[in-house]
């Protein structure tokens, strides 16, 4: 597995990491954020800049007002956030790009629009040492597409250290289940949303007869989304992912309570097939998914192959875990026997009236590609690991 070991910094470690990272050498930072209403928009950027105020920095902010409806409370928060961004990135350091989600046929394709919006990234990515994608205020389709595009450019599957790119890619977010549940979602799409280069092609003829294994990442208020994805994907096996180690200890119980009829009556899910994933650690879910997919791939060889469908419907951390698993499996998986992709239905309207004025959240930084995965770093880690084994043998 590529992300083994991984680099994840949470809470106090967040600041400690960024302080050291920015002190190490001169860095040129590019922040990519959502210019939205989520109160967490400013959190990670503010903290990182505070750790290294002299680092060269620029920000690309994505304005999503064309494609997503909001209420008055959300509009107000959005304006406040934009003012805050202008303060953090003064002069010409802030560039706002508008996401136009509907094409000339009137068809909505958020993912393709996001990919087109950043189609020029190869012309500027080399100007920076660190690309920091803050997914706190970005809709899922946008950040999954963006990160997939950047990873495709930076990761070299054939290399000894595939993730050891010259440019560092960080995914940062402010995790808060309370804020997530305070944001009300409306106008759920009836069909699966296309996801550029990541969507599962259910009607692909070459893999038509292969069994479909679905990994929906569960949350409380996603019954309608699950119903629609389930109807479209017609899974043969379901391995639901249940978030654990949440701030609310009863969260898992609440989710099962809300979704029990769907899981056990409608789809006859075996409770032994439920995967548990630490809510704030994307790499833990990534590992679980990679291991589970490998086991299914082995046992479904006789059926000709397998299709793995991932549906991240829960926290941002778990969505990143799904992305990393899908990305790696698509890059190096056995194309003759495996297809991996995501299936998602999006909401077109968000309302923020229930968000508290000073919400609490936890900052998380995941380093997904760059110098820490390079050959030098890899060698150093391997040597350290071997030394510790020698020590153990001596004992």
């Amino acid at each position, binding site marked *: 597995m590529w992300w083994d070991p991984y680099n994840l910094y949470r809470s106090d470690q967040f600041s400690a990491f960024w302080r050291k990272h920015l002190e190490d050498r001169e860095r040129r930072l590019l922040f990519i954020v959502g210019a939205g209403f989520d109160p967490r928009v400013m959190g990670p950027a503010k903290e990182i800049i505070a750790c290294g105020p002299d680092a060269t920095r620029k920000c690309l902010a994505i304005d999503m007002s064309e494609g997503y409806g909001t209420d008055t409370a959300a509009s107000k928060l959005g304006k406040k956030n934009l003012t805050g961004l202008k303060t953090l990135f003064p002069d010409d350091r802030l560039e706002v790009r508008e996401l136009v989600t509907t094409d000339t046929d009137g*068809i909505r394709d958020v993912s393709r629009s996001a990919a087109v919006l950043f*189609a020029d990234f190869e012309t500027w990515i080399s100007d920076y040492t660190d690309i920091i994608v803050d997914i706190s205020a970005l809709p899922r389709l946008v950040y999954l597409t963006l990160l997939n595009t950047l990873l495709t450019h930076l990761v070299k599957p054939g290399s000894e250290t595939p993730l050891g790119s010259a440019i560092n890619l960080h995914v940062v977010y402010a995790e808060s289940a309370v804020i997530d549940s305070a944001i009300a979602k*409306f*106008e759920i799409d009836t069909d699966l949303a296309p996801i550029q280069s990541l969507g599962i092609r259910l009607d692909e*003829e070459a893999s038509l007869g292969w069994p479909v294994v679905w990994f929906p990442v569960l949350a409380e208020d996603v019954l309608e989304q699950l119903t629609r994805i389930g109807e479209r994907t017609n899974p043969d096996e379901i391995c639901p992912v249940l978030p654990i180690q949440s701030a609310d200890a009863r969260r898992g119980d609440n989710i099962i309570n809300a979704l029990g009829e769907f899981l056990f009556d409608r789809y006859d899910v075996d409770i032994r097939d439920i995967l548990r994933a630490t809510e704030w650690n994307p790499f833990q879910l990534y590992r679980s998914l990679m291991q589970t997919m490998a086991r299914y791939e082995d046992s479904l060889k006789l059926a000709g192959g397998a299709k793995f469908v991932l549906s991240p419907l829960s926290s941002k951390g778990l969505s990143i875990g799904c992305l990393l698993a899908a990305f790696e499996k698509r890059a190096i998986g056995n194309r003759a026997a495996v297809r991996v992709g995501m299936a998602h239905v999006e909401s077109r309207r968000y309302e923020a009236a229930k968000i508290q004025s000073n919400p609490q959240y936890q900052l998380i930084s995941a380093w997904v590609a760059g110098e820490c995965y390079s050959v030098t770093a890899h060698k150093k880690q391997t040597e350290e690991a071997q030394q510790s084994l020698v020590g153990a043998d001596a004992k």
Partner: protein
Amino acid sequence: MARNAFAIRTSETSSPDEIFSRYFAPEVLSILPQDLFATSALVLRSAPGGGKTSLLRIFTPGPLIQVIRNRHLSPHDEIHRSLAQLGVVDEATALAFGILVPCASGYAEIGPQLEERTSRALFRALVNARIILRSLRALCTLHDLDYPNGLGTITCEYAASLFDEGPIPRNADLGALRAWAEDVESRCFAQLDAVGNTSVDLPLHMQFDAVLWLSQVSFVIHGRTVAAKPIVMFDDVHRLRPWQRTLLYSELLDHRQGASVWFAERTYVINPSELLTGAIPRRDYEEVRMEQAWSTAKSKQYLNFVTSIANRRMAQMRTDLESFGDYLSNTVTDYATQDKIAKALPEMEQRVRDLASGSGLFDEWISSAASSTAEPFEKAIEWTRIGILITREKQKVQASLDLAPLSDDDLEARTGSGVPAAAERFVCHRHDVPYFYGIERVVRLSSYNVEEFLQICAVLYDHIYAQKITRSRGSGPVSVSAKIQNDALTKLAEKRFKELPRLFALGPQAQRLIESIGLMCREKTYEPNAPYAPGVTGIALSTQDREALVQAGRDGPGNPYFELASTISSCVAQNLFEVRDNHKQDNKTWVVLYLNRLFCAQFDLVYHVGGWQRVSLRRLQDWSRGVVPRANEKITLV
């Protein structure tokens, strides 16, 4: 607890063929034209969950073979008989087989990033590739061959044709043909996944050559020519981009090139994209609108169909419960209800006497009702009926000069077909008596939609099962009371209504529109003279209004009625309305939009189809924005 089989959605594509065919209810085949192959094309329309995909699937080789193999055994014998009547099977032989081509995935991604001609050519290429691959797969299944290895045992011969040969290779063996088609599909996907410049290696086709190919080719297996005719079945055509749908229809609806083509799509009321085809209905193609076909079918045909589905689901659960309808009480004769109504009878009688006071015209009616020995509920309905008719008589402009009391025969003559039903509704509403109960009413609440029916059954099944496991031995048969049924269905209706804003784009507008329509229907239904007996349950658009909405859809957001057109289209797409197209009344043609029957429970309306009211576009627009103008305390319609 036993798994609730009504919650399972296995009818469409997910269940194995043997399970699908065992639980397939053949009554649905009766709504197809009896001369199925008289035209080369068939268009099948229904609301979501109407049963289109299940209907198409029974024609595909897997279920077809199951039916043929088990044609002497129940329940396959019934299915075999129905298919034989349609000319699809003949004893142990399939005379036709379906090639299912879903339109839900991949095609809509071919969009404006490409130049128009390239888009069309790429679309045709992907369609052709998929038809070829699905045909080869279907052929193997039909003849019990392993796919793809079994393709080696099939050879093909081509009939000479006057048409130019298209891009599909005519001289390749089937293995090579499969590789060719998979390559075409693969190159299409590579293009769809790319962002930026068009790939130079795009497969571009100028016609839907695969349909022509199917009409030219004969397959030979072990020296015998395959006699079964192929039927290309496009499912979920509404999921295509508008120009793709138009292209498919315009090039295939009147193709007359041999292979039959079927299209299944969601019902449209306002369709901004013209079909641009000269195809003539009933000459070149047949159209079947499933809900309308059920509503005009022989009495109880739909009832038999859905109860057959329900009973098969019950059998799946193996809980010793058999016939679903038998467990639902279909009367309100329990003592508590009768007692409640009996106590209200004197007040009802007095109200009628007060209405009739000052005139001796109604003395016979009142006297007959007063001396009736019927059960309290029946007496209450009778009093209410008389009250409605007295109100009507008194509202007549020209008073009768005849002073003799009206007879009971006059009462019967003045009682239109809807008045007893209206009277029952009035009684149930005024005295909080259950109204939605019994299998027939439950079926009606499903708006001729199988998925709606299953959702309703899932809710009621929980009560049936609860009764089964909690009742003590010897305490009588399992029977869910009318009150429990009514309460469960009303709660389900409320839940559906409350969820509307979340469920789809324009959900909030749809909810406001439905609510205003519901309130208007309730107001009209409960007018003392019940002018639209049994009650009002819908609205109507004139032909001009419908054309205005179609134009609004074409014009886009600049047109003042664009949002209304989109809202109504979404409501139809989500089965919130039952649509009656080309309804003729008063020498005019109307499009009638009846509320989904389940919302009739939300707004205390009748479960019958009922009457409708013409509402102007301006008023509908107001309603969708939450504005409900009134005049003289009544909701205005224009």
